[in-house]
């Protein structure tokens, strides 16, 4: 038997895997080691580092959440759930999967209303963001290039300041003796008594639109900026009015921007926690608050995990759509 070529110990001079090596592989080192020996370059290492990190700290945690969502709640345990997998004394593996937590999610009225409320808030916040953000992005993309960068900077600037503090700022504006009520009630006298705006759905909408507006404007802007003006001119030459040419030319062309911006608002808004806990109603919870309460107050880890998994399943489709658009955008940049 000939030993392998100079480059690789596993192949003979004709490039075939040598029988000796095959023999060794069967009893000796496991399969993957041969694979590593053959392909061992720095590249693999470079790929492996971020890959492993994300597998360990992003993917595996979800599997753990999935596992615990099927576990049985034991209030006094530490951690407070019964193990799902257990080795019995005879060496058998016992698997106990309970779907009680999931059944509860869809039957308990509190939960059902929280789901519906979260979806409603996220949907209308996205619509309001689009209604305000689209004209803004459009105006920026139509302004002279020197102003454009300043305007963009003004849009991004609040994003760099603390999200929590920006939400906090609205408490000062919305509360009963806050700025808005002082202006309306004391100075202008438009309203007969201070408006109750804190702890309402209105405050939540304001908070979400305010916090996520830059996420709507930026993808829209980067789309609108690329539009070819001659198309609009052509439409107008052919007799289309401003509204018609907008509806028939600009809008359809900016569709990818609308989708990307809307998803960037909708997805995090469904799971929003800070804004409803600071500004929102106390009698109507959103899903994220429910999850946190279930976890921190009731210490019911299985149920909190089930809420997380259900939320994830709900958001999987929008997240995948978003990723497709993101990839397309990157590919378009490459060309």
């Amino acid at each position: 038997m000939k030993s392998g070529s100079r480059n690789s110990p596993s192949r003979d001079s004709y490039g075939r895997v040598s029988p000796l090596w095959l023999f060794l592989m069967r009893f000796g080192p496991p399969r993957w080691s041969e694979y590593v020996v053959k392909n061992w370059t720095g590249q693999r290492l470079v790929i492996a580092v971020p890959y492993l990190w994300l597998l360990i700290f992003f993917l595996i945690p979800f599997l753990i959440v999935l596992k615990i969502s099927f576990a049985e709640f034991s209030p006094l345990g530490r951690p407070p759930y019964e193990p799902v997998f257990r080795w019995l004394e005879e060496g058998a593996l016992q698997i106990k999967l309970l779907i009680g937590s999931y059944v509860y999610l869809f039957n308990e009225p509190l939960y059902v209303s929280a789901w519906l409320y979260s979806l409603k808030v996220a949907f209308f916040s996205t619509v309001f963001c689009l209604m305000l953000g689209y004209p803004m992005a459009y105006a920026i993309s139509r302004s002279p290039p020197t102003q454009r960068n300043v305007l963009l900077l003004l849009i991004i600037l609040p994003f760099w300041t603390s999200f929590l503090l920006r939400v906090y700022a609205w408490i000062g504006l919305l509360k009963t003796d806050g700025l808005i009520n002082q202006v309306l009630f004391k100075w202008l006298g438009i309203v007969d008594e201070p408006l109750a705006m804190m702890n309402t759905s209105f405050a939540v909408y304001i908070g979400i639109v305010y916090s996520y507006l830059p996420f709507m404007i930026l993808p829209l802007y980067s789309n609108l900026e690329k539009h070819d003006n001659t198309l609009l001119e052509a439409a107008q030459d052919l007799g289309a009015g401003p509204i018609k040419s907008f509806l028939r030319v600009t809008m359809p062309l900016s569709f990818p921007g609308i989708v990307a911006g809307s998803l960037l608002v909708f997805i995090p808004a469904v799971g929003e926690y800070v804004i409803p806990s600071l500004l929102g109603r106390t009698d109507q919870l959103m899903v994220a608050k429910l999850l946190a309460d279930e976890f921190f107050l009731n210490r019911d880890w299985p149920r909190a995990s089930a809420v997380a998994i259900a939320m994830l399943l709900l958001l999987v489709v929008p997240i995948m759509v978003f990723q497709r658009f993101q990839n397309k955008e990157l590919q378009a940049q490459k060309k």
Partner: protein
Amino acid sequence: MKTEGVFSKTMLWVGLAFLYIPILSMVFFSFNNSRLVTVWDAPNSPTVKWYIKLFGDHQILSAAWLSIQVAACTATGAVVLGTLAGLVLSRFGPFRGRAFLQGLTTAPLVMPEVITGLSMLLLFVSLEQLFTAWFGWQFDRGFATITIAHITFTMAYVTVVVQSRLAGFDDSLEEAALDLGARPAKVFFRITVPLILPAILSGWLLAFTLSWDDLVVTQFVSGPGSNTLPMVIFSRVRLGVSPVVNALATIMVLIVALGVVLSAFLMRRQEQRRKREEQMAATG
């Protein structure tokens, strides 16, 4: 066209007012003497007494220090991992599991924070159990767990920034260096890194800001006794407005505004210099 322009211009200014009035009002009332924050106490204002109170507030100061440490470590770790991921995704061509890696890097961008936080905590709890069972070693949740969690969700942002910067260049420079006999590692540090340096810097700043600002994930993964600044702020403003928080917000807004203006100024100067050099090269 005309009316459309007027409408969108108006909306732009309305939107900008909407973005800035809350911040400005927060800054304004930080100089108010009244404890009620939004009721202007004309005879005794403006005053800086809340700023003096802020700098004597040990809870806030120690939380801020912890937040700075976490954010700096997070940003550095996220830049290393995010740059590697961005490089792999845009330069290594198709390899097995590439689409999966792309999915793993963009998913944290849109993942609701409560889910990330819960899953990270459950991972740490499981690891704790494993470590105690196997090595008899107990670790506490705190600085390390917060930093790991932050790196995981901020590296996605760095990856996107680096990837889109790399997509703007073709790899001819790197190829040339390889042809001239440079080893891949050398090519990376001498060619690729200088090219994407702006992306790396803005990725670092982005990761720092996101970590500095994060409340939800931190609340899940932090242990007793390790309170970051957002946690302290949250627990205070839950009870209502507090003038000390206004003072703190003012300082933070000031730092960010200065930083952004400065970086815009530097970028513009660099751009001008580049243009001048290009012109000189063109005229010969």
